[in-house]
């Protein structure tokens, strides 16, 4: 097995452990778009955990940066409007679609939710189609 596959598997196992901790202690799904969206419309008593989760995500990023700065390589080198458009689509789409890669793709599929399986197949298929098209039009190199 190539080392990249092993790393991907190991990282995936860590993510599986993380979402299991969230379920076991807090009884919650680790859906990152939903957690962020909830933090943007603060409800008393339901905000601190969301904010600290996001702080943890960023602190983990700093830890990774200290261990191996290479984890943040791979800039697409695309024009900046594409980053803005991508962010808008991801923000709007994940809330309209009730979840992203973590909530639907990991947590939903793990509890055998057909709804999440459908969402995951749709966003992966859309991503595959979009990359093919954007490459065709020279928007992605």
């Amino acid at each position, binding site marked *: 097995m190539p080392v*990249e*596959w092993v*790393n*991907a*598997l*190991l*990282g*995936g*196992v*860590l*993510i599986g*452990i993380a979402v*299991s901790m*969230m*379920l076991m*202690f*807090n*009884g919650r*799904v680790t859906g990152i778009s939903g957690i*962020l969206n909830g933090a*943007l419309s603060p409800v008393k008593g339901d905000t601190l955990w969301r904010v*600290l*989760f996001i702080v*943890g*995500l*960023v*602190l*983990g*990023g700093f830890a990774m*940066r200290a261990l191996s700065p290479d984890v*943040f390589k*791979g800039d*697409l080198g695309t024009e*900046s409007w594409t*980053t803005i*458009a991508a*962010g808008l689509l*991801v923000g709007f*789409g*994940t*809330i*309209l*679609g*009730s979840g992203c890669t*973590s909530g*639907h793709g990991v*947590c939903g599929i793990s*509890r055998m939710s057909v709804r999440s399986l*459908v*969402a*995951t197949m*749709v966003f*992966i298929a*859309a991503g*595959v*189609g979009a*990359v*093919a098209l954007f*490459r065709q039009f020279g*928007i992605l190199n």
Partner: protein
Amino acid sequence: MGNAKMKNALVALAVGFVFALGLGISGMTQPSKVVGFLDVFGSWDPSLIFVMVGAILVHLVTYRLIRRRASPLLSPEWHVPTNKRITPALVAGSLLFGVGWGLGGFCPGPAMTSLASLDSRPAVFVVSMIVGMYLFKLVDAKLKIQK
């Protein structure tokens, strides 16, 4: 602030931290790898499929074990989604998300973890993503979308 709420928040902090390590180790914080994973009709790099495989294999088992309990350890009840309907919103939203994922190479978690790179691109992405979420809220206030 209740003691339980503080404990919930500290758990969330730890979960976020471990999640970010998983994202970094797996390659999910490298947009070119993500685009390579989605580039099935070009030079496909399948490695990121193993992120989902690893996470789902673990959580398929732990989900069942954990849900045998009457309640979570630090909460009186479960907060797991119960909606089973396949709605137009689910499909349309996932479609838009997928297009944005392919265009930017970031989904929400890796984008926020990549803020630690202090590069401008993840920051621009995250700000735009937050604007997108507010835009949805504006649209939803008018249309009352059935999710």
